[in-house]
C-alpha cells in the first residue's frame, strides 16, 4: 500500500465511521434547571401531554407500555443522571439514527406544526424531573 492508497483507506474509514455513529467522547450534560422532582418526572414519563415516554419504553410499575425502545428498569444503575440527561435532551448525539425524539432541542427540525414551532417537547424543568425519575430506576 503506497501513501496515496493509505490516504484513500483513511478517507474510506472516515466515511464508514461517520456513517456508523461513533460514540461521542463525552456523553454527559449538567442540569438545565433547578433540582428535578421524581414524582413529577414519573407524570411526565406517562402523560400523553408530557413526554409520553411510556409510548415506547416500559418501566417498573408502569402497567401498559410500548416496546419500540428499551425497557428502562435499572437505567439509574447503568447511567449517571448527567448521562441520562444527555440522552433525553438529544439522543441523536449518541445515535444519529435513533427514532427517539430530541426532547429539548428546537434546531434542525423541519415542518414543525405552528403550535410547537420554536418550543422543545419538554421544558428544561420537565427534563430535570424526568431525569430525577429515571435515576430512581435502579
Amino acid at each position, binding site marked *: 500500500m503506497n501513501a496515496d492508497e493509505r490516504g484513500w483507506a483513511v478517507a474510506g474509514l472516515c466515511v464508514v465511521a461517520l456513517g456508523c455513529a461513533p460514540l461521542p467522547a463525552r456523553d454527559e450534560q449538567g442540569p438545565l434547571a433547578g433540582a428535578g422532582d421524581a414524582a413529577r418526572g414519573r407524570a411526565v414519563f406517562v402523560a400523553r401531554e408530557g413526554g409520553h415516554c411510556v409510548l415506547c419504553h416500559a418501566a417498573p410499575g408502569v402497567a401498559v407500555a410500548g416496546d419500540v425502545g428499551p425497557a428502562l428498569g435499572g437505567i439509574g444503575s447503568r447511567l449517571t443522571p448527567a448521562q441520562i440527561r444527555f440522552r433525553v435532551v438529544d439522543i441523536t448525539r449518541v445515535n444519529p439514527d435513533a*427514532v427517539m425524539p430530541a426532547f429539548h432541542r428546537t434546531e434542525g427540525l423541519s415542518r414543525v406544526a405552528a403550535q410547537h414551532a420554536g418550543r422543545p417537547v419538554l421544558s428544561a424543568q420537565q427534563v430535570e424531573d424526568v431525569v430525577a425519575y429515571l435515576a430512581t430506576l435502579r
Partner: protein
Amino acid sequence: MRALAALALCACAAAAAAPPRPEPPLPGTHFLGSDLKALQADDFANPGLLWVARGEALWSEGAKPCAACHGEAARSMRGAAARYPRFDAGLGRVVNLEGRIDACRTGRQGLPAFAPESPERLALAAFVARQSRGMPLAVSVDGPARPVFERGRDLYRTRIGQLNLACTHCHDERWGKTLLAEPISQGHPTAWPAYRVEWQTLGSLQRRLRACFFGVRAAMPDYGDGDLLALELYLAWRGEGLALESPGVRR
C-alpha cells in the same frame, strides 16, 4: 484501496435510497385485534357498508348520473380503485380516486366538486373501491407519474415535525412492535376509505395521513395537497400485490 473507499461511499448512497418493502407484506388487518377483524369481515356489521350503500344510490342519482356514462359499476369499476392514484391523460396530472370523482363531477356532470371528507365523496369513493375488493394493488409509477412517485418516496423517509420522525422509522423498521399496547402496522393503504374507530366515521387515506403528520407534530398538509397525493402513490406502489379491503375497519 480506492475501490474499498468507493464501496464505503456506495454503502452510504444505498442507505439513502428507497427503503426495501417490508417482508412479508402484511395488510393493516393483520395488526388488528380479533374484534375489529371480525367487524371488517362481516358485511352486516361493518359500518363502512352504510357508506357503500349510500354510494350505490348516488351512482344513479341526478340528471347526469355516473351510471349514464359508466353503466353498471360492478362491471365498469371492477379493478379501477386498485390502479389509483394514476396519471390521468385528460387532466394532465396524477389524481387519486376521490380526485377522479371530483373531475367527473365538475367536468362531465357540471356539478360542484364534493368537499373533502364529505359523506357523499366518501360514499362514492367507498362504493367504487368496493368494486375492487380482493384485487391486488397495481399502480403505475412510470412516465408522467414518476416525479410524483419520487416526491412521495422522498417524503416517506424525511424526518418531520417536533418529534422528528419519518414514516420509514415506524412502518419499515419497527412494524410489529407496539406503541403502548397497539402494534405498529406496515402502513399499507389497502383499507381506504375505512371506518376508523377513533373517528367514529369513515375517512379517506388523506385524512389518515394527516393524522400521522399531526402525531409527529408536523404541519398538516391541506386535503388535496401534492405531498399527500405523492405519499398515496408511493404507498400504493409499496403495497403492490396486497388485496384491497375497502371499506376496512381500523383503530
